[in-house]
């Protein structure tokens, strides 16, 4: 038991931190509470650093709790990824505190609890852990989304997310039930052994498809993308960020584990379906983003499109594809955090997030203007930024398989079309920043120093990932190599 706890030490620390934050709220004064978020972020930073400790990394490739929990390269990579995301979101949340009006400490604690769920999900090697971790994330997000009770939109988003989320949970568990019945076990290892003889078993296939649907909901892939725009728009912006990056990444780590290593032969059998899903996701996201004027909603649609690009890595069914997903996700993390932070800084409460609020940003704050431009350019996939390299790796992984399957070419064509369409609307953002005539106000934007630091870090990371991709690629490769051993 003791050494098993060692495996989950990071998660335990995070949960403990969450509990501490909840408790601290009772004893701290109003002014001290403000720095609670920074404190929590700092502590998470510590946890993040601890994840590099030799004592912890030596556990990699080990299993605990009877094989339910697996700590391998992939899991470790994602744990760090989630930690990083949460640090940024916590800093963001402090910025956002005034708009939450009440329950700020609880908000912070929930972020930490959701984080622990994501970290567990990264290590899930059993359907029961998968389900429980996902539910921890989802249920926490129900609350995080509807946290601004004074805003109708937040409540509406919460209800929508809750109902659709519950439906998707139902699909997931129903799928799990069928898979359990046919494979005889909830454990991934057992399913891996059994699945080759189940490839024609329709009940098993039915179950796996339901599981896929449950995960596709998380990553907002077509046809389960429909919730994303409304929820992204209505939710408090830090929640949106966390949802767009963390929750999506949690979906992906499970997809990678399940479809990449547990049932690879089934994935191959389903290549056609995956291509169609990826292509439609790209198309839907990009096309719907085209006439969109609300920035958060725009990013939601673009998030759908990005899920489609990421699915290309799953479709590729290779280590390179997986590594590309990891790389892309990291780039996406920095880009999206920066973008949402800037949108939050620029817009005012109650005014909505219409794109016109960016007008004249280059005069109000050249730093923010440049940073947001970099984000948009990176999302559009133009070198030398993170987004380009991520897309490059994804396309490469698909192209490597393409000669021999025309479907891959169709997917590539759709991806190209999607990127071109996306350039149109990302370019619209840049256009509004720099050469829009109707500037509403010219007041400079005040930025707190931790926010500034996070933004600076994000910009640096976007550039780093685009210009010096060697090391990150190696990390991503290492994370995938260990996992499939």
């Amino acid at each position, binding site marked *: 038991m003791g050494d098993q706890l060692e495996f989950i030490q990071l998660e335990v620390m995070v949960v403990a931190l969450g509990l501490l934050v909840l408790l601290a709220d009772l004893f701290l004064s109003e002014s001290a509470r403000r720095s609670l978020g920074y404190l929590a972020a700092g502590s998470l930073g510590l946890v993040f650093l601890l994840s590099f400790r030799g004592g912890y990394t030596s556990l990699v490739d080990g299993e605990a709790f009877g094989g339910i929990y697996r700590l391998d390269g992939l899991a470790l990579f994602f744990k760090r990824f989630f930690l990083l995301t949460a640090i940024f979101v916590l800093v963001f949340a402090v910025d956002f505190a005034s708009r939450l009006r009440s329950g700020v400490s609880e908000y912070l604690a929930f972020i930490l609890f959701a984080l622990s769920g994501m970290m567990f999900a990264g290590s899930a090697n059993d359907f029961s852990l998968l389900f429980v971790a996902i539910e921890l994330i989802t249920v926490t997000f129900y609350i995080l989304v509807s946290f601004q009770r004074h805003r109708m939109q937040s409540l509406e988003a919460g*209800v*929508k997310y809750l*109902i*659709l989320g519950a*439906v*998707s949970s139902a*699909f997931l568990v129903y799928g799990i039930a069928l898979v359990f019945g046919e494979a005889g076990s909830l454990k991934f290892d057992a399913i891996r052994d059994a699945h080759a003889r189940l490839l024609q078993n*329709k009940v098993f*296939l*039915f179950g796996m*498809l*339901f599981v*896929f*649907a449950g995960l596709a909901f998380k990553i907002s892939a*077509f*046809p*389960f993308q*429909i*919730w994303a*725009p*409304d929820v992204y728009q209505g939710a408090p912006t830090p929640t949106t960020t966390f949802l767009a990056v963390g929750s999506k990444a949690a979906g992906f780590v499970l997809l990678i584990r399940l479809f990449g290593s547990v049932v690879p032969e089934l994935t191959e059998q*389903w290549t056609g*379906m995956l291509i*169609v*899903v990826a292509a439609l996701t790209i198309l*839907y996201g990009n*096309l*719907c*983003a*085209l*006439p*969109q004027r609300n920035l958060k909603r725009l990013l939601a649609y673009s998030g759908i499109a990005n899920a489609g690009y990421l699915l290309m890595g799953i479709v590729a069914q290779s280590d390179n594809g997986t590594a590309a997903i990891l790389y892309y996700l990291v780039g996406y993390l920095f880009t999206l955090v920066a973008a949402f932070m800037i949108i939050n800084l620029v817009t005012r409460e109650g005014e909505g997030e219409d794109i016109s609020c960016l007008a004249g940003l280059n005069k109000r704050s050249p730093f923010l203007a440049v940073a947001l431009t970099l984000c948009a350019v990176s999302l559009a996939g133009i070198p030398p930024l993170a987004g380009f390299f991520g897309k490059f790796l994804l396309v490469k992984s698909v192209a490597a398989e393409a000669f021999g399957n025309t479907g891959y070419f169709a997917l590539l064509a759709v991806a190209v079309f999607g990127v071109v*369409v996306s350039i149109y609307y990302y370019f619209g953002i840049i256009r509004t920043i720099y050469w829009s005539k109707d500037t509403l106000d010219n007041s400079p934007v005040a930025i707190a120093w931790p926010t500034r630091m996070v933004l600076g870090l994000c910009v640096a990371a976007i550039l780093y990932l685009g210009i010096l991709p060697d090391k990150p690629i190696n990390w991503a490769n290492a994370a995938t190599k260990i996992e499939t051993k």
Partner: protein
Amino acid sequence: MNTAAWLILLLPLFSAVVIGLGAFRSRKASAVISIGAVTGSFLLTLLLVAFGGELHPSVTWLAIGGLQIDIGLQIDQLSKLMLCVVTGVGSLIHIFSLGYMKEDRDFSRYFAFLSLFIFSMLGIVLADNFVMMFIFWELVGVSSYLLIGFWFEKPSAADAAKKAFLTNRVGDFGFLLGILMVWAALGSVGFADLAKSVSGGTATITGLAGFLIFCGAMGKSAQAPLHVWLPDAMEGPTPVSALIHAATMVAAGVYMLCRVFFLIDGTWAMEAIAWIGGLTSLMAALMAVQQDDIKRILAYSTLSQLGYMVMAVGLGSPDAAMFHLTTHASFKALLFLGAGSVIVALHHEQDIWKMGGLRDRMPKTYWTFLIGTMALCGVPLFSGFFSKEAILDVALENNILLFFVAVFVALLTTFYMTRLFVVAFMGEPRSVHAEQAKESPAVMTVPLLVLAVPSVLAGYFYAHAPNPLVLAASLVVVVFGMLVANTLYSGAKADPLPAKLGLLAKALRQRFWFDEIYQWLIDQVQENLAKLADAIDRWVIAGLLVRGTHGTTELAARVLRLAQTGNLQTYAFWFAAGMAALLVFTLS
């Protein structure tokens, strides 16, 4: 000697460049450099003629794979003759220009262009291969363009320049294709190599290739149907008309045909060339009969004479063609310069019906002009007599029909030249300017006098036994033409012919409506094609395809997002429907 050969070519280029780069600031320097260059070339030419044998210096210009293009100078009998013509006549015209262009504010530019032209023309003359010839062919076109459009602010001049260039380009199109075909068939573009393979009997070119090469000549030498630019080209300064549109550039086509005669000889192209030449000469002569502009009459006469030469080539006698080319160069330059002298004296009045009585007022011009006229008409003992006779001779031998055409043309030539001469120089002055006309200064009259010498004597250098029949015919024609014209126009105040000939005269005055037909053709074909392309670009590609794609995308976007109704139940429905679709897709 090789250096001398290169210098002949490069001196005028040097002059043009120097004037263009800075010497233009001084009028005097420009003139001195330019005239120096051309006379230098002339002297070097004489040097070559006197001492040089056949020379063939060359450098590689471009060599890629199987394509080798040299810049080389082929100096042989033919090119020496032509060199003499070009540099000799050129020198005189340069000097004449000193007087003619004295008042012009773009004096330096004029001389730069003139030098450029001489350079280009010498390039054609010296070229030892097709591509080099084509290069200078084009350069001649451009320098002629620049000179015709010298007074570019005058719309008519600018238009004429444009027309000349474009018409030439149509000919060049054929020329280029001809070169390509020759290269493809014989594997080289050098005249020496080609001659070797043709004489070795290893290969020949097709008639089509020959005809295409002739297309080049058709443009430059203004053969029908590409003759329309030459009369308009008279918008340029008169010395330019004399130099380019009488003596040299227009002769280039004939020269080129002679140069590559060995290639086209024996193909069906010869027949076509002969007929086109004959018809051009006939048509041009007819049109000359009813022109009133002194320079235009000369221009049509030039056309007509070029037709002679081309016909001679087509009938298999490049010698006769070159002979006529040489004599024609001198007397036509003389005529043009004479006309220029008259025009200057009359303050740029060009209508012959506003002249008259110039005999007494401009005696030198009068006499030299008379010599030129006689030579052109083919009055015995003048140079034109011998060369024209040589051509008639060839025609009689080879094609009797063309012989009659040629004789008729000779008659017309005498007629319209006499008309011109009688109306412009004899009788009483018909305008104030004509009354006050004074003889031109020496700088202009001396070249006239100098040119008069070869106009008389050039015929004696060509040994040729005359055919009595031809002799008789040409004599009759000359006498008859002169008499008729003299009776008709002596003392006339206006042209009596339009009244007598009616529609025919109108057709002649309107130059058989060639320009109108071309304009119509261009409007109908070229402009409509352009309109069509533009419309396709605007409406189909930029409109239907691009905006269509854009519109479809936009529409798809707007339709797709209708799915996002905001209603939870719809969302749940999409969810279930999507799931069902996925299931059906994967499981069945």
